[in-house]
């Protein structure tokens, strides 16, 4: 069934992403092996790399063939007994759930994420944005990721879940442990000389998941005793097919909301600013006419593609682009790649803030289209409106430090300088 590919590219080597070399690898794969078998390793099963736009559309649009319930990252241990930190949530979280259950569960919460619900939050989001910017206003320089980009989405999602401000830094720290488990910077539970190893990544991910569950369990108990106007209380009172959600269901829901709500938008904001700074003509065009911002936000999303991959498992024998995919095999959809596929975008390697059409797949498409896309778009728009209004000369003050991850297109640190406010 599977055959050796002529292209020797291993996208499980997440240092490719840390070094910012993924686009070169993707270009080779799109051209020479658009449906590319990676045999995996001693511990990990193999998978198919899918790098063309049309093929990712096909996979996304057939959730009845390509299941999310066996996990949505590329990694599946060969040993079914091996502990896989987030694997316990497979089939329980929205993101790892198939239809028809998925759409029904999604309907419990999606009213809070529709365009109308999102637009009603604009004033609130602008207020948070300005509070965040107040804290850097007099400094003249800062780490844009830690001081700005992470703060807005963290405040928005933590606020929606009713978490107290004192707990937000912990949510940031645990998000980094879970989603950045492979990056030595976040492997603080592991002795220094053992960081950067697969074991260190597994321990870090496990610690992140456990600590997040510990924290969320306390929140859940609190909401059961005292309902508030927040998402956790809404979940406590929700019924699914006549039954209340179990504690396990609610805890995994909260886990997903926190992770998805803060990491991705953070990287959309950081990646957006980086793209604008690296393309001064486009940036000048935007700052001269801020009505171009909604379109520029779409281009920032295409360019940054904050989610790097999502995986599915074939439920039956099938084919992609003529390549046979066997039942049980894993396919991995690479979003940064499809968003620069020249079959879908003219001059895909040009950053163009007025690109039209711009039907990028940064949020995925179909059954699992990003629930929070509206919030992400609004948070990016408001952030750049306020940022360029108050700090029009904000500029890079050092190189970006990228996250070592094949799952999240992350930037950990982005030094910037600007004229301080008086």
């Amino acid at each position, binding site marked *: 069934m599977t055959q050796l590919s002529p292209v020797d590219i291993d996208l499980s080597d997440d240092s490719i992403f840390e070094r910012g070399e993924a686009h070169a690898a993707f270009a080779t794969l799109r051209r020479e092996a658009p449906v590319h078998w990676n045999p995996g390793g001693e511990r990990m099963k193999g998978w198919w790399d899918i790098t063309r736009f049309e093929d990712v559309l096909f996979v996304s649009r057939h959730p009845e063939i390509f299941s999310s319930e066996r996990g949505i990252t590329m990694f599946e241990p060969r040993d079914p007994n091996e502990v896989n930190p987030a694997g316990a949530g497979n089939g329980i979280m929205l993101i790892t759930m198939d239809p028809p259950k998925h*759409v*029904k569960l999604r309907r419990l919460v999606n009213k809070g*994420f*529709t365009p*109308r*619900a999102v637009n009603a939050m604009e004033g609130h989001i602008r207020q948070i944005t300005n509070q965040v910017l107040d804290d850097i206003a007099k400094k003249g320089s800062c780490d844009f990721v830690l001081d700005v980009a992470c703060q807005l989405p963290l405040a928005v999602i933590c606020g929606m879940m009713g978490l107290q401000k004192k707990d937000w830094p912990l949510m940031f720290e645990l998000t980094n442990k879970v989603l950045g488990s492979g990056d030595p910077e976040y492997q603080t539970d592991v002795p220094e000389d053992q960081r950067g190893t697969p074991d260190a990544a597994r321990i870090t991910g496990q610690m992140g998941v456990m600590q997040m569950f510990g924290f969320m369990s306390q929140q859940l108990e609190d909401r059961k005793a005292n309902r508030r106007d927040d998402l956790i209380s809404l979940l406590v009172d929700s019924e699914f097919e006549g039954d209340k959600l179990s504690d396990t269901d609610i805890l995994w829901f909260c886990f997903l909301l926190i992770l998805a709500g803060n990491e991705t938008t953070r990287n959309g904001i950081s990646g957006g600013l980086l793209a604008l700074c690296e393309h001064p003509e486009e940036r000048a065009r935007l700052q001269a006419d801020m009505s171009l911002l909604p379109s520029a936000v779409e281009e920032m999303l295409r360019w940054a593609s904050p989610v790097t991959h999502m995986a599915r498992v074939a439920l039956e024998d099938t084919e992609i682009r003529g390549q046979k995919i066997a039942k049980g095999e894993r396919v991995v959809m690479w979003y940064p790649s499809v968003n620069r596929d020249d079959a879908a975008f003219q001059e895909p390697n040009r950053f163009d803030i007025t690109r039209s059409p711009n039907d990028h797949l940064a949020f995925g*498409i*179909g059954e699992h289209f990003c629930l929070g896309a509206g919030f992400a778009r609004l948070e990016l728009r408001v952030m750049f409106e306020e940022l360029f209004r108050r700090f029009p000369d904000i500029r890079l003050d050092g190189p970006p430090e990228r996250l070592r991850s094949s799952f999240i297109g992350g930037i950990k640190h982005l030094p910037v300088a600007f004229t301080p406010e008086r």
Partner: protein
Amino acid sequence: MKVTVNQDACEGHAKCQAAAPEVFEVRDDLSTVLRDPVPESLRPQVERAVRLCPRQAITISEG
């Protein structure tokens, strides 16, 4: 052709309205099909709406 929107899947993203304003209108976060049948001349716009719908909520049936 007949065009339908799956109201369970639709989340009001309004991509359909942008692609085919003669056919779709989004009200209260839900897309409504304005015409039945939809004239064949609007097929390209409707097909674009089908393709762009983030939630894959639109179907075209013949007749």
